[in-house]
Each structure stands twice: as C-alpha cells, then as structure tokens.
C-alpha cells in the first residue's frame, strides 16, 4: 500500500473558549483550556455532516492526484455518526465523487483509532489484489448530537466536550501501485474499557425515549444517556499502558530507532495527554506534530488533519512517519510509513 495523497476539510465557523467565560466560572474554563490545549476549533452548521466534510476534502484531492474517479475501486468512510441509520455514508461519497460501479463501499464505526485502523483494513484490501486504488475518508461531526453547539452551551457537564471536540473531514488516497509506504503495523483492543468513551443511548440496546432528553436542574452536573461521556482518568491510564508499547512494537518490527522517525503523529486527544505520552514514549519533542490547539480533538480525522496542516516540508520530501491512534473501544493501532511525496491541497473550508 502506497500513501499518495491526504487532504482535509473543516467548517469555516471558528469557536474560541471566550463565550464559555461569559457563562461559567473562569477557574473551570481555564482548567479545561489549560489541559486540553484547545485555543480554537471548528464547528459545522446544522445540516452539515461528517460525510459532507469528507467529500469536500476528497474532491480536490482526486483532482490534484490526476486520478480518474472511475479508477477508484474502494471507499471506506470512518465515522461514529453516519448521515442515516442506513445506508452507510460511504455510499453518499461514492455517488458524489462519481466512483465506478465496481467499487467496495462501506462505513467503519470507529473514533480515535479510525484512521490507523482504516489504513490497516485498506492495506488488506489492496493486498488481496482485487483493489488498486482506495480512498479512506475519516470525519466527525457530532456537534448538536453528542454535545451542544457552543452558542447553546448552558450546562457545566457539557463544558469540557464542547471546548475539546471539533468537526473535520479528511481524505487519504492509497494505491497498490508502486512501492509500499508501510514499514510496520500493530493494533489491539480492550473490551473491558467499553464504557470509558460512550454514548449510551440511541442504538438498539437503549433506544431513545423522550425522558432521556430531559435535564433536571439538580442533575446539571450529570451527563444524560444521550450525551458523550469520556472518563478522563481511565482513558489516560489506558493510553499510558498501551501507547508507549505500541510505538516500541512498531519500531522493533521496522528495525527503526526513535531518531529514524522524522515526524510523530499521535491522535490529537488533548494536549496534556499527547505531551505526556510523547514524554513517556521518549519521542523527540521537535519531531512531534500537533494541531490540537487549532482544531481540537477531531476523532478519526485528527491524524490526517495534523499531517495536512502541520506536515509542511515532510509532504514534499522523503519522510518517515510514526502514526498512532487510540481511544474509543477501547482500541489502538499504529503504522510506520515511509513516503516520498504526499499530494495534498490547501485546507478546504466550507
């Protein structure tokens, strides 16, 4: 599998923490901003979905690559919030991008490890010989569903998620043509952490009821079953346990040292966690790419978004990348990649 192109799209609407200071104790807002490191993020307008953002990222990339859309024989869209219960949002992308009838099209429900998991799945498809060119679309637009719009933020329990989570869509172009970019892969899952990052209600186990949407005043601090719940300390403990080992395993498989890597791209969980994991995994600080301060945590989009917006000269020249995703599931995966030149387009804003 050769990585030939990456692009990203974010909504135009920039959200800064300022508005939270008007409604909440400055102590609380400072503490969240200080830890997450998110100074601004993007929020899509009502009606815009993850697939819209991904499609807007993919269109100019396909053009920049000079790919005839009819030569793309797989498109996988990674998101936790599809446009509809069915069909998969990838089918919308398939139609909008003008892809051929002979095309493998489906969604993957994953968050933070979505890009790296998606890369591994596409690697398998390409290796099967039946597929030559594939698009991996990773995007998230949960605003208005699992967390409120910043302008509608009222409850203390929604503050951290509203300041942390941003909307974005990305496209990654992969092909079986030419030399492979993949030098090492690894992955894993721990189902005992199933409830650590969760939206309880809305699926078949806990179908929505009108009561789930109500919020009683005395329960202001408690999240409802329809809200996104993140158990911070447990997630840190999980990442602490798994991520440094993931990096070591990747390096061992490739026979690389930490210094051999030119750019480290972690899932942009939050600034505190990225810095801690980087330190713990002994990642050279100067080689750590970070975009969390500008775009927030964008789930499966965060690694490709960071490559596009922080990759700089690495996109133009031979580069060794270490990419690692970890989170909801709980799940983790990583790839060491070696690229010559990655085609990209300026950040798309819609």
């Amino acid at each position, binding site marked *: 599998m050769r990585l030939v192109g990456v692009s990203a799209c974010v909504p135009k609407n920039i959200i800064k923490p300022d508005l939270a200071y008007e409604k909440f104790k400055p102590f609380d807002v400072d*503490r969240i901003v200080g830890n997450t490191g998110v100074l601004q993020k993007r929020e899509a307008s009502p009606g815009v979905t993850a697939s819209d953002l991904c499609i807007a990222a993919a269109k100019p990339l396909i053009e920049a690559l000079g790919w005839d859309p009819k030569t793309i024989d797989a498109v996988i869209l990674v998101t936790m919030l599809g446009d509809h219960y069915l069909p998969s949002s990838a089918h919308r992308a398939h139609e909008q991008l003008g892809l051929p009838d002979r095309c493998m099209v489906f969604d993957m429900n994953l968050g933070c490890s979505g890009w790296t998991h998606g890369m591994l799945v596409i690697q398998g498809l390409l290796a099967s010989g039946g597929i030559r060119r594939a698009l991996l679309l990773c995007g998230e637009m949960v605003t208005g569903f699992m967390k409120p719009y910043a302008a509608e933020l009222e409850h203390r329990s929604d503050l951290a998620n509203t300041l942390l989570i941003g909307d974005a869509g990305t496209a990654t172009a992969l092909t079986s043509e030419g030399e492979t970019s993949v030098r090492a892969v690894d992955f894993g899952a721990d189902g005992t952490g199933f409830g650590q990052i969760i939206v309880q209600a809305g699926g078949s186990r806990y179908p929505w009821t009108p009561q789930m949407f109500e919020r009683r005043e005395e329960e202001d601090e408690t999240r409802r079953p329809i809200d996104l719940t993140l158990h911070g300390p447990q997630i840190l403990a999980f990442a*602490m346990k798994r991520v440094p080992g993931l990096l070591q395993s990747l390096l061992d498989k490739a026979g690389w040292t930490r210094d051999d890597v030119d750019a480290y791209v972690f899932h942009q969980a939050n600034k505190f966690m990225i810095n801690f994991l980087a330190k713990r995994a002994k990642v050279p600080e100067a080689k750590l790419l970070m975009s969390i301060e500008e775009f927030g945590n964008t789930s499966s989009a965060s690694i490709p978004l960071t490559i596009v917006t922080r990759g700089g000269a690495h996109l133009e020249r031979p580069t060794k990348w270490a990419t690692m995703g970890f989170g909801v599931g709980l799940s983790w995966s990583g790839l060491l990649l070696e690229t010559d030149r990655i085609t990209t387009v300026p950040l798309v804003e819609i």
Partner: protein
Amino acid sequence: MTKAEFISALAEVLETAPEKLTTSTDLTGFECWDSTAVINLLVVFDEHGIKIEEDKIRDCKTVQDLMDLTGGKIQ
C-alpha cells in the same frame, strides 16, 4: 519517592503551597480536587514507577489515604 517530593507534587496538582498540606488534610476541600487532579496524580505516580488504579485515587479523602495507596512506596 520521598514524602517531601510527594507533598510538593501534590501541592502543585491542588494549586496550593506544600506547607498547607499535612497527612490529615481533607482533599475534598480543594476546588482543584477533580478528574483533572486525578489525571495529574496518575502522571506523578507513573513518573516515579508507582502503578495505581485510577478509581482508587478518586475515593481518597485525605493526603494520608493517597500515600497509603502506594503501598509504602512513599518513604
């Protein structure tokens, strides 16, 4: 990890002065005693090679409770 090192690190987490902390100090009296403090303490323990279950940190009421969690690793 020495007791002085631990108290100094804990004071930083709680955004207070080390001299304001004794073994009987009530953690729940600090505005900073929240999930962020638990995360910061996990990191402090981890950096000293001490493995603690995150749920147990939140259950601690006093400085002594925290020290007891480490099973004698704070001297």
